[in-house]
């Protein structure tokens, strides 16, 4: 399968029917999404380095895959993310505070999935794919025309649960769109050690409608996702998009990617940077001007300031939080432990 692309790395638009819908407004909006996401991402990285966050997993380099896809679906289409999908989350209105809380270690998750139609992050690889399929079964039963989109990585596709999800969705014809950000690496493991054939081919084998798209081309991702989403919405069955992208950072702030990949590889991907690419188009088409650049710079700076502020302001949780929400209907065992621990803690204060 050929990789679908609309925008070449040098910023020229290809001759493709989908290119006709590309205009200044769209490109500026997508550009803004990506630039802001990258700013949040780098601020969070710095905050981790300063000890303000326990861990951070960067989405650096994957902004186009995320922004292009989430901007192609409806706001009420439910999304089941993985854990690196900050750009997508931001497009859904999830705040910096909500995004950082989990990585600062003050909560296990940040936002209300119902409010944003965007699930909490899933750290156990591929588990969310089955949730997405189940949710989509519910959507179908309800007879509404939403669809479900779920993000996952190349590495996650090797899990049994991912494949159960592909097969299940194809079998029950669930309105779900699987979106793989193939960023070439799963921690230190390259895709060559992850699968023997490309994922989009596997997806076809399961009976999913599959597309391979240049994941660093936000316009192509958007167009491909739109196409897939509308087919799913029309009831044509589940689909999978494999977006070829690259994890420009380490796996996480705990990782040392120099141990397993070359600077040359990085250099190559730098030339394919999704933000640079769109900027070239903006410039080439003169869809940008000083005001736009200045405004966006200012907005990004303001976001940076905000990220630092909210992060540092995130309060340590009350120990009682640990005992909350174990069972929705409550448990005497847990109640007893909460009370005992409170009494025990109080005994120190008395001392």
């Amino acid at each position, binding site marked *: 399968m050929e990789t679908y692309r609309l925008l070449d790395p040098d910023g020229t638009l290809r001759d493709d029917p989908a290119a006709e819908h590309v205009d200044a407004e769209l490109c500026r909006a997508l550009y803004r999404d990506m630039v802001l996401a990258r700013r949040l991402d780098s601020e969070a990285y710095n905050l981790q380095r300063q000890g303000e966050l326990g861990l951070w997993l960067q989405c650096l380099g994957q902004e186009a895959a995320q922004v292009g896809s989430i901007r192609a679906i409806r706001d009420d289409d439910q999304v089941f993310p993985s854990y690196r999908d900050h750009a997508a989350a931001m497009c859904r209105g999830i705040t910096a505070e909500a995004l950082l809380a989990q990585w600062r270690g003050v909560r296990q998750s940040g936002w209300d999935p119902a409010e944003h139609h965007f699930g909490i992050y899933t750290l156990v690889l591929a588990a969310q794919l*089955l*949730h997405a399929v189940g949710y989509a*079964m*519910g959507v179908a039963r309800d007879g509404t025309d939403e669809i479900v989109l779920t993000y996952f990585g190349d590495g996650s596709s090797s899990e049994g*649960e991912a494949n159960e999800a592909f097969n299940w969705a194809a079998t029950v014809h669930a309105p779900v769109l699987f979106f793989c950000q193939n960023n070439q690496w799963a921690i230190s493991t390259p895709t060559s050690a992850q699968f023997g054939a490309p994922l989009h081919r596997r997806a076809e084998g399961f009976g999913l409608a599959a597309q391979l798209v240049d994941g660093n081309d936000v316009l192509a991702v958007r167009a491909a996702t739109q196409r897939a989403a509308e087919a799913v919405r029309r009831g044509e069955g589940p689909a999978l998009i494999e977006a070829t992208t690259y994890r420009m950072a380490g796996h996480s702030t705990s990782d040392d990617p120099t141990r397993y990949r070359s600077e040359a590889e990085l250099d190559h991907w730098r030339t394919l940077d999704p933000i640079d690419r769109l900027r070239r188009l903006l410039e080439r088409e003169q869809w940008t001007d000083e005001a736009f650049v200045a405004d966006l710079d200012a907005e990004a700076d303001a976001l940076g300031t905000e990220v630092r502020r909210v992060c540092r302001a995130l309060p340590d949780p009350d120990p009682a939080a640990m005992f909350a929400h*174990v069972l*929705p209907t409550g448990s005497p065992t847990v109640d007893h432990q909460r009370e005992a621990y409170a009494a025990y803690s109080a005994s120190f204060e008395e001392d």
Partner: protein
Amino acid sequence: MPTTLSRAVNEALHHALATDPSVLVMGQDVGGLGGVFRVTDGLQKDFGPDRVIDTPIAEAGIVGTAIGLAMRGYRPVCEIQFDGFVYPAFNQITSQLAKIHARSGGRITVPVVVRIPVSGGIGAVEHHSESNEAYFAHTAGLRVVAAATPQDAHWMLRQAIASDDPVIFFEPKCRYWSRGEVAADADLPLDAARTVRPGSDLTLLTWGSMVETCLAAARAAEEEGHDLEVVDLRSLSPVDVDALTAAVARTGRAVVVHEAPTFGGLGGEIAATLAERCFDRLEAPVLRVGGFDVPYPAARLESHYRPDLDRVLDAVDRSLAY
């Protein structure tokens, strides 16, 4: 009219499907076949294949999609075909089903019931006779219950389905064909233990497949002049600790009986708790009678493996003689 435990479950499912449109029944062969134990017999005929769903053979998929359906507002009741086949779903159960309410800060509730025909006694082949309740009871965030009678099977299942908690629901498969009355109402909440038989000399604490065995032991002991109490835990997590403690504080002697391997079984938890709480009241050590610490054996050996009346009485004698 006494009904079988299997039928009592069937009627609870029927009632839930009939009264709550968000209830779904899903699992392998639960539809046309009515399940390998016929527990779901007729449900697909009455409620259609969209509500009584034959799934692919993928246990993680069953629980995982049930979680997704629950997030969408449904109340799925999953069937795992046999106890030994729940392990492929263990990841979805422990990391997702049990934890997602807490992980989401209470924003997500997943009212999923996972029904598991459990334990041995039917001469089955390997992997079909596991007593694996301890894995789930040790997993914070799950409600774990075991029904021993038609009354409990029916009402506890209805309560489990109505509850917003994720519930692991154990049905002792060797009791599917046993009969008993099902009352017009529930007589106990889901998390209460039941004194099945009062007694003053010693308390037998048990659940699921072993309740009947303990009752038989109590009847036999009566002939020898011993008055044994039998308590059915019913709720395996959380455990009705107060009721258990009160009972043992009264009799001063306790034997915990379960079918699972003894080592690391839930009996250890119960015995440890009682030994702590009733330290000054105990006239003998809390004894345990359980399966041996070996993989469940071939069918022709299961009568040796499973605690029976004699092994229970042996422990009772040791306790009383202490």
